[in-house]
C-alpha cells in the first residue's frame, strides 16, 4: 500500500495517540457540585483593537477542576484573568458579551471588583509573596477584610497553611520573611494566602511553570486535596498535568474556545481535529 509521508505520520501518531500518552485518572463525582459557577456567553476580550478572546461561550462547573490548555498567546490566561477582573490593570482592555459569576454580571456597571476578587482568588505564575513574614503574608487578606484579633488571625493562618499542606514545614518559623522559603514553598504559601480570604473559586495561572518537578508534584497533590471544596481553574502548558489534575479541560486556539469537554473525553477522544493535533504534539 502506497502512503504519502503525511499519511504515514498521521497513522503513527494515531496508533500511539492520546490514549497511550494521557490516561486521565478515574474521578469520583462530587456531590453538590456541577452547577455552573461561571458562565460566559459570547464573551470577547479586546486589547485595544485586538480581539484576544473571541466569543467564548462556556459554563465552568462548581467544585470541579477545569484546566485550560492551548499554545502560547491563545488567550487562555487572558480569559482566566478576566474572571476576577485582573485585566482591569491593563490599559485599553475591554470586553463584550456576558460573563456571569454566581448569576451576577462580572463586568456589570455596579459590580464591586474588590468584592469579586475576594470571592475569586488567584495564584500567579511566579510565586509572589510580599516582602513580609509568612504570618503577615497569609494574614494579609483577612486583615484587609477587617479581622484584627490576633487569636482569630492565628487560627486562619494555621488553617490556611494546613490546607495548602505547608503548615508542617513552616509552623516553627512563621515570623521569618516569606522570601526565605524555597520556590515551591512560596507558591504553596501563595495558595494559603489566597485560601485565607475564603474564596469560592481558585484561579491558578500556570502555578507550576516556575517550579521544579518535586514542587510541581506537591502543588498537584494540593489541587487534588482542594478539589471538591473549591471551584478550581488552572491554566497550564503541561498537558500531562492537565490530564492528571482536571475534571474538565478547555482547549483554546488563537482566542477561540475550540473544545470544552470532560478531561477523560478530551484527551482520549477529542472531537476536534485541532485539539488532537495539539495534544499529540503536532504543534504547540
Amino acid at each position, binding site marked *: 500500500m502506497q502512503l504519502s509521508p503525511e499519511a504515514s505520520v498521521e497513522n503513527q501518531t494515531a496508533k500511539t495517540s492520546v490514549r497511550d500518552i494521557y490516561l486521565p485518572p478515574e474521578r469520583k463525582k462530587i456531590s453538590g457540585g456541577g452547577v455552573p459557577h461561571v458562565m460566559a456567553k459570547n464573551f470577547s476580550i479586546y486589547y485595544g483593537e485586538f480581539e484576544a478572546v473571541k466569543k467564548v461561550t462556556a459554563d465552568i462547573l462548581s467544585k470541579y477542576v477545569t484546566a485550560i490548555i492551548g499554545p502560547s498567546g491563545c488567550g487562555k490566561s487572558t480569559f482566566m484573568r478576566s474572571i*476576577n477582573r*485582573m485585566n482591569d*490593570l491593563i*490599559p485599553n482592555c475591554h470586553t463584550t458579551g456576558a460573563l456571569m459569576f454566581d448569576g451576577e454580571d462580572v463586568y456589570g456597571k455596579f459590580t464591586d471588583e*474588590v*468584592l*469579586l*476578587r*475576594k*470571592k475569586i*482568588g*488567584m495564584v*500567579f505564575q*511566579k510565586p*509572589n*509573596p*510580599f*516582602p513580609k513574614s509568612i504570618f503577615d503574608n497569609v494574614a*494579609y*487578606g483577612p486583615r*484587609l*477584610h477587617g479581622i484584627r484579633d490576633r487569636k482569630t488571625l492565628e487560627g486562619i493562618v494555621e488553617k490556611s497553611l494546613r490546607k495548602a499542606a505547608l503548615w508542617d514545614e513552616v509552623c516553627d518559623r512563621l515570623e*521569618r*520573611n*516569606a*522570601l*526565605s522559603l524555597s520556590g515551591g514553598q512560596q507558591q504553596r504559601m*501563595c495558595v494559603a*494566602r*489566597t485560601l485565607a*480570604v475564603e474564596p469560592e473559586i481558585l484561579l491558578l495561572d500556570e502555578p507550576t511553570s516556575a517550579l521544579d518537578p518535586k514542587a510541581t508534584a506537591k502543588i498537584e497533590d494540593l489541587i487534588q486535596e482542594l478539589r471538591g471544596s473549591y471551584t478550581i481553574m488552572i491554566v497550564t502548558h503541561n498537558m500531562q498535568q492537565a490530564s492528571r489534575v482536571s475534571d474538565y479541560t478547555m482547549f483554546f486556539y488563537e482566542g477561540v474556545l475550540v473544545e470544552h469537554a470532560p478531561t477523560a473525553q478530551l484527551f482520549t477522544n477529542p472531537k476536534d481535529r485541532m485539539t488532537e493535533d495539539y495534544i499529540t504534539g503536532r504543534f504547540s
Partner: protein
Amino acid sequence: MNLGTRKLLDRSFTALGIGSIVIMAMTLLIVLVPIVSNGFGALVFRGTIEHRKLLYNEFHRGDHEDLQKEIAQSDRYRQHAFAILSNFETELDQMDESRQHEYRGKYKEVKSALQTLLGPLPGEETPALTRFQYGPNRWDKAQEKLQSFLYEKKWDYSNPDEVAKEYFVSRAASFEGTSLVRLFPYVEQNLDKMLLPEWTFYWGFITDSSIDSHIFGGIWPEIQGTIFLAVGAMLFAFPLGVVAAVYFTEYAREGFLTSMLRSANSTLAGVPSIVFGLFGLAFFINTLKVSESKSVLAGSLTLAIMILPTIIRSAEEAILAVPKTYREASLGLGSTKWNTIVTVILPAALPGIITGGVISLGRAAGETAPIIFTAAVSVGSAIGLADIFSSPTPALSWNIYNLASEHEAAAEIRHVQYGMVLSLVTIVLLLNMSAIILRARISKKLKG
C-alpha cells in the same frame, strides 16, 4: 574583530575607567584635604590667654581662679613692656619740638600695633567693639600680629611702570637711640609668656553663638538655621512629593495632560536655584505674605519647591521599581487600590523614596541662592522654634559666602570660614550616610 584587537580594546577601556576614577579621587582629595585640615583648625588650635578671657567673660566658661593666676603670670611680663612705653613717653615729653613731632606719629602706630597684639593697653578706655577688647585668640594670629608690630609695611612706588611693591621696614630701626628700641626684642622674645598659648579644643565653635559678627565665638546660629531650613523644606516637600509620585504612577491616566505635567516636573528640576530664590521672594513673601519679610518659613517653602521635582522623580522611580507581582498579589486578594498602595507598594518602595528624600535634604541644606532673598541674614543669634514664622536666620551656606566675600574683616577669620565649610560638608555627608544606612537596613528587612 579579531581576538587581539578585542583584548586590546578591553584593556584600554579598563585603563581609561581606572584613570578617570583615579582623577576623580585625586580631585576629591585636593578639595577635601584643605577643607578638613583648615576646618579642624577652627576647633583645635593653640589658644592664647585672650581666648580664655573671652570664654570666661562672654560664655562664663573656665575656672575663675586659674584664669586670675594666668592673668597675673602674663601681666608680670606685660608690665615690663608697659614700663618701657611709659619710660619712652616721659622721654618723648623732654625732647625738643622737631624730634617730638618726628616720633609722635610713629609712636602712635607702635602703640596701636601693640594693642592688636596684647589687647587694650592700660590707661585706655575699653573699646566699644568686642573685637578690640581682646588680643588675638589664636597663637597663629598672634604671630602674624607680631610681624606687623615688628615691621612696618611700606610700598615702593619708584617704578611707575610696574605695580607698587611692598617691603618691610623694621620699626626698631626708626627708634634707634631712644629707650623704646628695647621694646621690640623684648616683645619678640617674651610674646609666648605674655599670651600663654596652649593647645585648645574649642568645641564651643560648634555650639556657641558668634560674637561681634564672627570675629569670635561659634557658628551655632548658622548650624541651627541650616537644620531648620532643610527640615522645614522636607516637611513640605516630602509628603507632597510622595503623594504626587503616587498620583503619577498609580492614578494618572497616560495622556496629554500627564505627559505635560511630567515634563513640567523635569523642567522644574533644571531651573537655576537663584530663580527659585527670586520666585520665593515674589510669591511667598510679596504675594502670599507668609511673613512680613524674610523668614525661615518662606525659606523652607522656597527650598521645598526647589527639591520637590527631585523627590517626585525619585519616588516615582522607586514606585515603578516595585514588582508588578506585588500589586497583582494584593489586588487578587480583594484589596482596594488605596490599600494596595499603602500596605504593599509604598513599603516596598520605601528605600528608594527615603534615599531620594535624604539626598534632597542634603541639597536643601547646602543651597545658597534660594535663601538669599527669603530667609538668610548674615549676622544673627539662634532663633527659637516659635520664631520660624517671622524671623530670618543665619545659615551655613549663605554665611560661608558672606564671610568670605562681604565681611569687613574677611582675612581675619579664615578659620571661621573653613570651620563653616567643614561643618556644612559634614552635615551633608552625615545625611547621605544615614540615607545609605537606612536604605540598607530597610532593604535587608524586605529581603528577609
